[in-house]
């Protein structure tokens, strides 16, 4: 643990010169980052800088470890800042510039106050500000990651359509890569649909799956077995020449499962199983 005394004294110096620092800092931001100003406006930046400085001076005597209790309020302030930045499409470098520009604004004041010990003061202060910058950056990334996760979830949900094509006949067109998580989802959606519609036949169309390796085949077989246990017959359609070749070469056994090349053939079989027939007018 480093000595806290330097931070206590830094906080005192900053409190004494708060107005000057604020002025220099805001000027620096105004002159170097047009975007921050266009997003928040001059008043907005001033207000943020003021709050920020207040929190910083209050928290600084606790040392440079951002994780401790003394910084909790300040952390909330930083997180809000990061949140707003993400919402307003401010880049992370602009975000961190806001913090880092404080360094330069304080140098003349520290020079005045500390004279020959200025190096120690500045380096300690810089460490603290660097920490803050990183904290903002990390928060920023976390928020972005959460957004991506939510989008993934949303995408996953719309990626498994279960379509009712006829009374008691369901169609699941599979598109894209199948992994364990997605197959699980597909299985659950299909089983719920079978349960709800009391469907007797389910058609799995795999023509939208680019590569069928043994893992994908395993997933498909699992889904088919599950549907069978529920009491519904499963038909796999969309097996192209390429896919049938790889399947045989991989030694995948789809025995006992009805497979067809085209969805139309699959639908015909499904209607057959339901003892239905399409008649021309």
């Amino acid at each position, binding site marked *: 643990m480093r000595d806290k005394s330097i931070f206590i004294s830094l906080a005192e110096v900053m409190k004494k010169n708060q107005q000057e620092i604020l002025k220099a800092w805001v000027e620096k931001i105004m002159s170097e980052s047009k975007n921050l100003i266009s997003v928040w406006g001059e008043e907005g930046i001033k207000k943020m800088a003021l709050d920020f400085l207040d929190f910083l001076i209050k928290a600084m005597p606790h040392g440079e470890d951002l994780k401790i209790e003394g910084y909790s309020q300040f952390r909330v302030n930083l997180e809000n800042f990061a949140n707003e930045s993400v919402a307003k499409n401010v880049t992370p470098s602009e975000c961190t510039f806001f913090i880092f520009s404080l360094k330069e604004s304080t140098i003349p004041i520290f020079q005045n106050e500390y004279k020959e010990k200025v190096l120690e003061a500045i380096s300690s202060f810089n460490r603290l500000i660097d920490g803050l910058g990183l904290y903002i950056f990390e928060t920023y990334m976390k928020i972005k990651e959460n957004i991506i996760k939510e989008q993934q979830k949303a995408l996953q949900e719309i990626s498994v359509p279960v379509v009712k094509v006829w009374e008691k006949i369901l169609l699941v067109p599979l598109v894209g890569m199948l992994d364990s998580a997605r197959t699980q989802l597909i299985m659950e959606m299909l*089983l719920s649909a079978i349960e709800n519609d009391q469907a007797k036949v389910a058609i799995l169309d795999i023509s939208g799956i680019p590569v069928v390796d043994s893992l994908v085949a395993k997933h498909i077989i699992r889904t088919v077995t599950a549907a069978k246990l529920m*009491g519904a017959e499963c038909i796999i359609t969309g097996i192209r020449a390429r896919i049938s070749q790889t399947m045989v070469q991989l030694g995948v056994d789809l025995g006992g499962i009805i497979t067809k090349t085209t969805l139309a053939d699959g639908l015909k079989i499904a209607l057959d199983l339901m003892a239905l027939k399409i008649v021309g007018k």
Partner: protein
Amino acid sequence: MAEVSILMMGENIIVPIQVELHDRAAMALQEDILLKIEETGASGLIIDVSAVSIVDSFLGRLLGDTARMARLMGTETVLVGMKKEVVITLIELGMIIKDLHTALNLEEGLKLLESLKIERVREENGA
């Protein structure tokens, strides 16, 4: 015991399981079912598990075994009304019950038994 009633309906035995079965009760049920088959010479057996929400590997295997035993006695078994949670659990456990017919509900189960019977008659005639 007699927690689960075993009903006779025409040529078929219907077993609606309305309680969560423990190992001992399940084994007792298996024996009761087989005795009933012996007694009546039923041609079909329907086990309705639509009220069962937990099927562990033991019960899963036991049901499969029961079906195979019934087959030896000349009775086809249809398991009806399995819930999707149960299905997913069985698949996760790697329990794939072979030689066991399944249907969505009791009605479909009865239809399936009927068609199985016709098939068998045809096979016997052919042979």
